[in-house]
């Protein structure tokens, strides 16, 4: 399989992830042999052996709920699922392959698939009843066991002689090679959840030895965000996309379709060492299920690691069921009258096709009329008029060469043939204004920005006017802090405009320059103050 990271929103299917070590007990042996001759010529032959026992613990009789990433259909879900094979996802990608059901013992050729030890069994309401109960681990075999940590004597197992469980399965599958026993950290008095399934039902619905390997695989999902997430990020504003994550998980699915219009229960069971009890071939030929004492079994006891149930109902309650009933069309009123020759009908039909609706309109003079309105969304087929107040849209999407509107009324449009107003653009202009005014921080920011712009204009105009009027004289400002010694003139001869009125006496020129600068400053201030009080461009006369 390719090892590149998956693209966003893709699912990669993987046949199986083998655990590095299967759960169980391991013995590590290190052996070193030395042979040769020592300095005296005596033969040395020594052998050092060191052994360590190692236990790999794994899920066996119970499952931490946090390992389950999800089930489908969901617990207690009511929906249209009778064509779907129930499935369970595990967040650990190796989980289904951590133990051995013993399939390889049952097949003539070596198996090509790695069979999972977990399977989903699907039970219908009208199946033969199964019995679920909590029992001690000792009840999974027929031999006596210690019922609690302090017990000095063993008690006989209550597992009925006609019920086959894991000890029997191991014996039938592995023969004398492997015996069913508890692993390190597991005790006969630990509690687990079991179900007793009638043998006939088990043989009918359990996957066969050849089926089992197909019913688990792993997936790598690279996340793509759903609607809810996308909305969250779009309100959080710019620059935060690209947080896709990829995820590995393993998945086991059932081999039986749920029943229509009825409740279905699914059990996740352990098939560890149970290969001999599974149907033997593709057609599901039942296996001969016997207990360890060679008695024909009537029940099979399996550990149920998880179970859930759901109900299959009418198709409309499903995702696609909903969407299939959705009515699709352009965003417009549906009641366009059928084609008629009258002018009125023509006009109304045309307007509705353009996304208009007629609304009551209270005019400013108090009279009531009906006006056309359409929102920002118009039917895709409708032509959008390219005229006032629409500005031509430039290359960068910005409007060009149109003056901003001074009032909403400028955006009102009047149709002389019908005598009706189109208030759409006037309404949107007014709405934008009201929304801006309601948001104090925005209107303040906007006002500050506009004031900065005005001041920038005036500064530029005044600078230019003064430059023109006073010529080079003002290029002297600011004054040097200390008049230099030597010649006492700070009016350098070459800076004086050629039209200057003859030679100016130093002291007079200096006083005049100081005064000029000071007066100009206050003049700017008063001009700016004028500007704030000015209206409609009528400039005040200067006295």
């Amino acid at each position, binding site marked *: 399989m390719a090892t590149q990271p998956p693209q966003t929103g893709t699912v990669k299917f993987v046949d199986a992830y083998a655990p590095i070590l299967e759960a169980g007990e391991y013995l590590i042996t290190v052996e070193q042999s030395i042979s040769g001759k020592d300095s005296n010529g005596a033969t040395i032959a020594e052998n050092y052996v060191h052994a360590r026992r190692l236990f790999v613990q794994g899920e066996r009789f119970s499952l931490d709920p946090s390992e389950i990433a999800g089930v489908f259909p969901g617990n207690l879900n009511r929906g249209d699922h009778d064509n779907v094979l129930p499935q369970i996802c595990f967040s650990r990608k190796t989980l289904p392959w951590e133990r051995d059901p013993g399939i390889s013992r049952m097949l003539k050729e070596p198996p090509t698939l790695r069979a999972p030890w977990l399977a989903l069994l699907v039970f219908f309401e009208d199946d033969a009843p199964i019995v679920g109960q909590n029992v001690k681990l000792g009840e999974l075999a027929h031999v006596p066991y210690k019922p609690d940590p302090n017990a000095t004597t063993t008690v006989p197992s209550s597992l009925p002689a006609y019920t086959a469980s894991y000890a029997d399965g191991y014996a039938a599958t592995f023969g004398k090679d492997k015996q069913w026993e508890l692993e390190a950290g597991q005790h006969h008095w630990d509690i687990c959840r079991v179900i007793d399934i009638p043998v006939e039902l088990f043989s009918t619905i359990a996957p066969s030895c*050849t089926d089992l390997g197909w019913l688990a695989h792993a997936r790598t999902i690279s996340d793509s965000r759903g609607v809810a997430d996308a909305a969250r990020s779009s309100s959080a504003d710019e620059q935060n996309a690209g947080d896709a994550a990829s995820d590995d998980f393993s998945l086991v699915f059932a081999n039986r379709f749920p029943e229509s219009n009825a409740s279905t229960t699914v059990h996740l069971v352990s098939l560890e060492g149970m290969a001999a009890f599974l149907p033997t071939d593709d057609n599901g030929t039942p296996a001969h299920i016997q207990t360890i004492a060679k008695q024909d079994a009537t029940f099979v006891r399996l550990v149920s690691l998880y179970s859930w149930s759901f109900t299959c109902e009418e198709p409309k309650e499903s995702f696609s069921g909903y969407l299939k009933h959705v*009515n699709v069309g352009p965003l417009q009123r549906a009641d366009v009258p059928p084609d008629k020759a009258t002018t009125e009908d023509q006009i109304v039909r045309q307007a509705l096709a353009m996304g208009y609706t007629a609304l009551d309109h209270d005019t400013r003079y108090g009279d009531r009329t009906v006006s056309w309105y359409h929102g920002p969304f118009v039917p895709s087929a409708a032509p959008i008029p390219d005229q006032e107040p629409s500005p031509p849209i430039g290359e960068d999407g910005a409007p060009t060469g149109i003056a901003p*509107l001074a009032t909403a009324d400028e955006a009102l449009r009047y149709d002389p043939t019908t005598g009706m107003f189109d208030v759409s653009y006037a309404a949107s202009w007014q709405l934008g204004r009201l929304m801006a005014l309601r948001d104090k921080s*925005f209107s303040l920011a906007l006002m500050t920005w506009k004031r900065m712009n005005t001041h920038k204009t005036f500064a530029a105009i005044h600078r230019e006017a003064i430059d023109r009027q006073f010529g080079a004289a003002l290029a002297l400002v600011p004054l040097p802090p200390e008049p230099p010694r030597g010649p006492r003139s700070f009016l350098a001869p070459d800076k004086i405009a050629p039209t200057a009125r003859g030679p100016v006496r130093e002291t007079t020129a200096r006083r005049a320059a100081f005064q000029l600068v000071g007066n100009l400053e206050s003049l700017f201030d008063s001009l700016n103050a004028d500007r704030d009080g000015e209206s409609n461009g009528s400039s005040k006369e200067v006295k």
Partner: protein
Amino acid sequence: MSSTPASHTSVQLKSQRAFLVAARRAALSSPQRLADIHADTQVTIEVAAWLARLKALMGVPFAYLVPDEEMLPPESLRFFQVDQNWLYCLIDGAYSVARVTTDDVAHDHAVAPHLHAATNHLVARRLAGGNGLPKKILQITGFLLRSGVVSGWPGMKVQCQDAEGKVLSDPALRIECIAPDILLCLVSGVIAKVIFQLPPESLQMGIDRDSDTGKLSPTKELRSTIAPPDKPDLKPGTFIHGCKAPIFLRDHSRTLKVNATASAMRSALAPLKAIADFTPAEFGVEMSEGLQMVTFSNDAVHK
């Protein structure tokens, strides 16, 4: 009237002032002059960001968007295009705050290109999804979906495509539930097709149902798991036209004969060279449900 230098200057300043006022009038009445002065004026980020949100119609009351409930009845999907004039008026209305005098109008006129450019730049950046160059803003179109699926399947994925099949919604200008059962989507470009899909986590295994009887279909349409050598454009996971495999069930129990079904799929796919190998992974792909994706076409858009 003495003729001291000071009073002489003051007389001169009076005429000077009149001169300045005149200069200002002249500049303000010349749009070109104002535009030159403001050639390098920058828009403050608060202003541009707020207007960019407004451009995606955020905060616009629903009654303005859809003035008539008849336009969007329950269980309906409505395609639309966004009227640029309407959007322009909305933005200009917001921009009109503190526009009182003719001077203000002149100024707003002069810096409007900067304002719109800055706003559009932020919108374009959003369309680029935070990575890559800002995208050019095309005509804005979208749809409204009012349905029980909006509230029932919040993990639902939406993809919009234009007539050429280009994906427009990655990312969308806006995609948001504006009411518990109403989804609004705005994209840059003309939507020809919108696809609703459940998230990949809920990709299910299953078979089709006969559309007339509602019974389980006896066959399953197959997908390619690799691009076949003779059809390199075929994406893995797409259906191969007309390629089907039988579904085998055990008698009377709705139980799948898994190995038999898998073998049938393998033999159906092998001659087409649409599989490299057939493992539980490929079986998982073949068994995944194809129904949980629904496509709507915008009939008003013709290629």
